[in-house]
């Protein structure tokens, strides 16, 4: 493959991930959804090294339909767990493109990164750390996210309710 022709440049990939973080921090959730493909999934596993979201519970496992319902609920005036609203700061770093796209398709690329989120609400601040896996796809509209997996370092601990998007 001609390296200069790939849409998966470090710069393009980082810009997408930063854009996602910015939309979340600005509460632009509908625009956030538009970064994802129609067959997308958003997954926050419950267990370390969890292999599937079907036979083990997950903190979040949303297909595209549930992602849309999640956004609808989050924007509802009686989403009590979001009143008052959170403020967050998503810090994305260590962005690495997997050397192999992991499949025959040159239209998809696997990205790993680390994420630190500072979340503030109701006089409480929580710090979240996670390793993140994105799968990106080239579409007619540009680069889009096919899947996002967020492995929280404390996924198996006691956790207070989570009502925002990592």
């Amino acid at each position, binding site marked *: 493959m001609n390296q200069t022709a790939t849409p998966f440049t470090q710069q393009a990939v980082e810009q997408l991930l930063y854009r996602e973080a910015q939309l979340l921090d600005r509460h632009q959730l509908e625009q956030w959804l538009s970064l994802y493909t129609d067959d997308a999934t958003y997954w*926050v596993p*419950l*267990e370390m090294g*969890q292999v599937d979201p*079907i*036979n*083990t*519970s*997950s*903190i*979040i*496992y*949303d*297909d595209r*339909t*549930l992602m*849309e*319902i*999640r956004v*609808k*609920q989050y924007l*509802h*005036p*009686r*989403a*009590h*767990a979001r009143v008052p609203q959170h403020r967050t700061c998503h810090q994305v770093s260590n962005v690495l493109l997997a050397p192999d796209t992991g499949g025959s398709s040159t239209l998809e690329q696997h990205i790993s990164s680390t994420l630190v989120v500072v979340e503030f609400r*109701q006089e409480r601040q929580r710090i979240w750390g996670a390793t993140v896996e994105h799968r990106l796809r080239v579409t007619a509209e540009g680069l889009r996210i096919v899947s996002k997996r967020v492995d929280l370092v404390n996924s*198996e*601990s*006691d*956790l*207070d*309710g*989570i*009502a925002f998007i990592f």
Partner: protein
Amino acid sequence: MSKLSPEHLRSLIQPDRVHRDVYTDPALFELEMQQLFGKAWLVLGHDSQVKQPGDYFLTEMARQPVIVARDQAGTVRVFHNRCTHRGAMVCHEPRGNVRQFTCAYHGWTFETSGELKWVPLRSGYEPQADQRLASLALPQVARVALYRGFIFASLAAQGPSLQDSLGHMLSSFDDMVDRAPDGEVEVAGGVFKHAYHGNWKLVLENHLDGVHPNYVHASSVQAAREGPDPGMNAGGAAGSEPYHDIAIRQMRQNGAPDPVWESIGVWTTTHGHGYLGDYHDDSRLVSGLDNPVHAEYHRLLTQRLGQEKARKVLAVTRWNSVIYPNCSFMGQFRQLRIVHPLAVDRSVVYTYSFRLKGAPEQMFRDTVAFSNVVNGTASWVLTDDLEVYERAQRGLAGGGTEWIYVGRGLGRDVPDSEQRLRGATGTSEVFIRNQFAAWLEYMTGESAGESTGNKAGDNA
């Protein structure tokens, strides 16, 4: 009058109201740890969590760390997780399999039966210390009992037996286990541990509360209604529904209209227990209703039980069953929660899913999807419950209004068979009055044991 005297405690619990101190006073919380969590039968887990000799898991009783283990002879035992030498926890990994428990501090080693097996530098003790050392086995919790695979323990040597304490509520455990085509259930699918800044009672009250869903869960009901209608994929076979199907169905069910909640029934029994009738009319969620997805399950269950018994098993329709003071579970939906009080205003709830052994695999996948919606830490539904518990705690912390009012249905409660008292409607607050009647019995140490469990709440 001492704040903890029986006389004062009785003044906090009145027929139609309860003083806010029971949710907020640290001294009362400490007394609860002694008198209530320190005496009652507590649900600790299920024997499928300790299948093999040497299997163990850690948990807490009244904030004390304990080990639930199956010893080499196959007996389930519950130990205080505390070395008899200098008091360190002898076991630290949350679960696993061991040949023996070895203390990290000085190497004291205990058999899985608790017996002290080895100490370092034995010659450092006088010969007459042998007897003393032999007595230093890992201490066992006073009473342990199993029922249909569920593990219970009590820190008190004296008190009603498990059978007497749970009475009619044992039928809720029967309900869960009888649904398994192989006659057994097992813990599977991960454990959610959700915490909130509120008193432990709030969750047990909420689980039998049929009024709250239309208010607390308004946002998830509405969002699910705006989602695609659940149903089969076009041309798809039963069971091939998309993953989101279960979530949308369950969230929509929470929007059942008032007449449904009024009609489902709520029952209480002695010692604070109770259960709420089920409100589901969605045949995809309830295996007792006809649906192609459940046809194979019905066949397998009928094969083992015969048609009549299988129909009887599936006809039981309970939503949450509360085992006072630390457990709430859903037989039909294969979920169990154990409530751990950490402080007067801090609690954590461990939630478990169960697999019906012998049932089609798809049923367990449905259980996992259901668990994510109902018990997930980031669930559309649970997060709003947790938020409301915290608002209750913050509201109760302030004076101004010293009492909470629990009078719905008071004077209309219906004495039922088998020591049960039924709310006049499914939205009666009989279960809160019943929980506080039991609370008062435990806290004053004046447990009648034979009462209807509701005398403080209903003088009718």
